[in-house]
Structures are given as structure tokens and as C-alpha cells.
């Protein structure tokens, strides 16, 4: 059961090959069996079985809908009414969300079944899932390696078939990088495409939720459920949502692919480069035209990001003050002590590092030199994308410089961890959509290809990924566990 795609499962549920309750029990069983991966923070067994039962009734009544009765899992950043929503932090270890995120509401309305909440880096700050209060997630392809982050639990759960598909969020690569490390298909939509309401904020001008799935076809179905305008999110974009599955089969003949030379220079490991070349050759066979391009400002994406993201993080995380919800320290001496110790005792080191950085960048006397400067650099980076995407249909490149690194390998050196996000961060600054698609292996660990498109070109990206997946089998490979 756990090997079927979303459309296959929808068919099986309709022909009564098995019920949603049986399918849900099967996945709950698998989650128990593979607890050692630590992909889930909370398993919502009772809720899942009740939702599955309700879905079976709706199915029996002849109701349509691809996600009806489908067991999915949510990154633990999406507020879920009545369920612990921890964001991977001690700060919210006791937080039972009093409302649903719009994304959760949308899945509920479609009758999807929630298996549980997935592990993640604390407040989505990290690239390895090692900053989670609930411990590191293991990469199902190699349990000594990290799954990537921050949506590490989502990627590991989908790869290990512990959910049909999952949600993730991406501020600087947090959907694409773990998707690459775990060999699954992940899509970061255009900024504003998926509602951020109820999605715990890290860096508000960069955060975007999106699907993490086994194939582009599944990701299209998932994005269809997630996307759309939301009045409750003031940065949500009011644009019609296309049918993401409609164009999947369009041929790629004549597709113009841009390869930025900055993506294929120093720092990219030889084994990853080779796998990517093979994938690009596959696109040539599909009739695509490959064009070398240059995006000179990409190299400044990391410095700009590490000003903007921490600055926004320091503002967003000021709400965690020990007063209204979340962790409060014991016996505070006065109000300042209450704030300082509650935050000091409940935030982990990476979150603290970013709050400190952001506070500094926004403090009097430094605001222009750092924050405004970074926003100017951001515009120049964004213009690089505009120029490139006027010339080509999609941009391709690596997602990560290497395959998944070892657990503990980079924890002592945060800056080298930041530098590894070199290929994903610029995309968030420009707000364009991008995917990670599995295109092969190196030493048994998956390699992802990044496909980047223009604002609101998610349908095109899914089409480009799907056509590759029609002629290759990398996305069907599953870890041997």
C-alpha cells in the first residue's frame, strides 16, 4: 500500500481495494516500526483513525477528491487545533495550538488524514535537523547522515514511506535541500502562493510553505490543495490558482534551460556535478535547449540572507516572551528576568545565534549598513533572475554542493553550514518558485537537481520535472529499510 502514488491510492480507495482506515493503520504501523528515524514529533493516531473513518463514509457516499482518505503528515510548524505544535522548540513543547493554519484547514476540508507532526530544525533554523529540541532525524538512505533541514522530518518520512506525502516550509532552502538529501521531490512555491496563516514565522519576507512528495505528479496534487489566496495572510497573493496537473504531459521540445556558470564553479563536488550533467543530458534528449548564462550577484546571496533572515527572525521571535503562551521560567524575580530567562532557557543555540545577529543588524547605527544594504543587494539578485528568466524558461543547477553530510559533521562550525546553502538561498530572496528533483546517487546517497522558474510558473516546473520522471526511475527508488 505504501508504495502507491496519490492517484493510484485514490483509485484503490474508490474501488474498495482497501479502506482509508486500513491504509491509515498500515502507515501508523510503519511509523512505529521506524521510530528510530525520529521523523515524527507527534503521532496523532486517534485523530488519524477518526479522520480515516469519516473519509471512508464520504468515499462510500461517492464523494470525489484526490486527497480524500489519504494519510499525510504536517511539518510541526503548521498550527493544528488541539494538537501540540512545537516548531521543534522547547519554547513550544507545551503549546497546544488553539486554531488551525490555513494549510491544515485546506487538507481537512479535502478529507486528508493527519498521521502526525514532523520533526524539524528549531523554528526552521538549520540545514541538518540537528537543532531540533526533539533530536536529529536520521536519513533513511544512510542513518549516519543528516536528512537535511529544516524540513528534515518531512523529507525522511516521505522517503521512508511513513506518509504518502508531507508539507514543508522553505525560507532559504528548507524544502529543497532535505528533498535533495532524501531523494524526494520538493517544491518551494512563489512567495505568497501558499498561505502563511498559522505557519509559525521565521523570516516573513522569505517563508513559504510547499509540498514534499515522491513525484512531480504527487507534488502537483498536493500544491493544488495548498495554494490560493487567503485573507488572513496579509502577504498572500490574490491570483487565480491554475490546474497544476493539466500541463504535466506537455512535451519539452524547445524548452530553454539556463545553466548559470556561478552554479557550476568552485565548491560543487565532482560527484554531484557528474550526476547533474547526466540529468541535463536527459533533458537534451527530451528536446530541450541548454544555454549558458551568468548571474553575477548570486555570490552575495548568503551575506544578504544572513542579514535579512536573522533581522526578521529577531522581530518575529520577540513574541515568545513567557507571558501568553509557551515556556515560562520558574520563579521570575521581575519582568525582565521573566523575559530573559524564559527565552534563554527555552531557545537553542542556533536560534539564539540568529536572534543576536538580527538584533545587532537592526540596532541603532547599524540598520543602514546591514539591513538596508542587504535589501539593496536583494533587489540586484532579484534582477539577475528577472534578466535570466526573460532569456530562458527555467534555470537548472545543484541544490546542494555535496550529498547528505554526516550527523555531527558541521555542528561545530555554523558558518560552514550556512555556506552550504549557496544554491538555494537566492531563490527565496527573489521570491521565485523552485523544485528539487531526485536525479541519481553518489555513494548510495541521493542527488537533487534544482529547477527554478519565474514567479507563478509552478505549473511549468512541475511539467519539466514530470517529463523527466516519465523517462527515468530515480523518483521511484526507495531506501532499503
Amino acid at each position: 500500500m505504501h508504495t502507491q502514488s496519490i492517484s493510484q491510492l485514490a483509485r484503490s480507495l474508490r474501488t474498495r481495494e482497501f479502506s482509508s482506515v486500513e491504509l491509515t493503520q498500515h502507515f501508523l504501523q510503519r511509523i512505529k516500526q521506524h521510530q528510530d528515524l525520529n521523523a515524527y514529533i507527534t503521532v496523532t493516531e486517534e485523530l488519524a483513525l477518526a479522520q480515516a473513518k469519516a473519509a471512508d463514509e464520504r468515499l462510500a457516499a461517492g464523494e470525489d477528491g484526490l486527497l480524500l482518505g489519504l494519510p499525510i503528515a504536517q511539518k510541526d510548524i503548521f498550527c493544528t487545533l488541539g494538537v501540540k505544535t512545537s516548531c521543534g522548540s522547547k519554547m513550544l513543547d507545551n503549546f497546544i495550538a488553539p486554531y488551525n493554519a490555513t494549510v491544515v484547514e485546506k487538507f481537512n476540508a479535502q478529507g486528508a488524514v493527519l498521521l502526525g507532526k514532523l520533526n524539524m530544525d528549531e523554528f526552521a533554523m538549520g540545514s541538518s535537523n540537528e537543532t531540533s529540541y526533539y533530536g536529529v532525524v536520521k536519513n533513511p538512505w544512510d542513518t549516519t547522515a543528516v536528512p537535511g533541514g529544516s524540513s528534515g522530518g518531512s523529507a525522511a518520512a516521505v522517503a521512508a514511506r511513513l506518509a504518502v506525502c508531507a508539507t514543508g516550509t522553505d525560507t532559504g532552502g528548507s524544502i529543497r535541500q532535505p528533498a535533495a538529501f532524501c531523494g524526494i521531490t520538493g517544491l518551494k512555491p512563489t512567495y505568497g502562493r501558499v498561505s502563511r496563516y498559522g505557519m509559525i514565522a521565521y523570516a516573513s519576507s522569505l517563508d513559504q510553505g510547499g509540498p514534499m512528495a515522491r513525484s512531480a505528479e504527487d507534488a502537483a496534487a498536493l500544491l493544488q490543495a495548498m495554494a490560493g489566496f487567503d485573507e488572513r495572510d496579509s502577504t498572500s497573493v490574490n491570483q487565480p490558482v491554475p490546474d497544476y496537473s493539466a500541463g504535466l504531459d506537455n512535451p519539452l521540445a524547445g524548452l530553454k534551460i539556463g545553466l548559470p556558470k556561478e552554479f557550476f564553479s568552485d565548491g560543487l563536488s565532482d560527484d554531484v556535478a557528474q550526476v547533474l550533467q547526466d540529468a541535463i543530458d536527459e533533458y537534451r534528449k527530451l528536446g530541450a535547449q541548454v544555454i549558458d548564462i551568468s548571474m553575477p550577484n548570486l555570490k552575495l546571496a548568503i551575506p544578504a540572507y544572513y542579514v535579512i533572515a536573522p533581522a526578521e527572525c529577531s522581530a518575529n521571535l520577540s513574541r515568545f516572551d513567557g507571558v501568553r503562551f509557551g515556556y515560562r521560567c520558574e520563579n521570575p524575580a521581575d519582568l525582565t528576568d521573566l523575559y530573559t530567562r524564559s527565552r534563554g532557557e527555552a531557545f537553542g543555540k542556533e536560534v539564539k545565534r540568529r536572534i543576536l545577529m538580527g538584533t545587532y543588524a537592526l540596532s541603532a547605527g547599524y540598520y543602514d549598513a546591514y539591513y538596508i544594504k542587504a535589501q539593496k543587494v536583494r533587489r540586484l539578485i532579484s534582477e539577475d533572475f528577472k534578466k535570466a528568466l526573460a532569456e530562458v524558461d527555467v534555470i537548472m543547477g545543484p541544490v546542494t554542493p555535496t550529498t547528505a553530510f554526516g550527523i555531527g559533521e558541521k555542528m561545530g562550525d555554523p558558518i560552514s553550514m550556512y555556506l552550504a546553502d549557496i544554491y538555494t538561498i537566492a531563490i527565496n530572496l527573489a521570491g521565485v518558485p523552485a523544485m528539487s528533483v531526485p536525479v541519481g546517487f553518489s555513494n548510495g546517497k541521493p542527488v537533487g537537481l534544482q529547477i527554478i522558474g519565474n514567479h507563478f510558473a509552478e505549473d511549468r516546473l512541475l511539467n519539466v520535472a514530470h517529463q523527466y520522471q516519465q523517462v527515468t526511475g530515480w523518483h521511484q527508488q526507495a531506501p532499503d529499510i
Partner: protein
Amino acid sequence: MSLTADDVNKIAHLARLGIDKQDVESYTKDLSGMLELMARMGELDTSGVEPMAHPLDQVQRLRPDVVTETNQRGHFQAIAPKVEDGLYLVPKVIE
């Protein structure tokens, strides 16, 4: 540019963020490293460039000034660390 331990303690105070004494040194080193990274932005001439606050250059939507939410005080306070008579309790601020 590099920071001192005093700088880090001052920033932590601004953020009302408790940090362990034994970690001050590593934060000082990490933050100095990050500032070094950021200094690279200086290579780029950005004079005349408009700062970009929103990736689609949108401005925030305004909604009509009418009440849309119902009062859920009890519901929201159910998860608060300390409440009494519908009020959030904190240590005494004014003697």
C-alpha cells in the same frame, strides 16, 4: 569587523535573551565571522538601488476596520502560563 564579549552581552540584553556565560566566547566568534561574511556586500555598488522589502514589491493590503473575530479569551488563555480572572499574570512591575 569583529565584536567583543561586551558587545555580545549588550546585544543579548537588547533582545532580552539569556545566554550562558560559557557560550559568550563562541557567540562572539560566530557573530564576528558572520559580520566578516556580510562585509562582502560592500564589494557591490548599490548606490541608487531601491531597497527590496517584498519579493513581489507588493504593499500590505488593508481591510475594512470592522470586527471579524469573536472573543475567544478563555480559549486562548487555556494555554497561558499563568492567568487569573481573565488576566495574564507577570511579576509585579510597579511597587
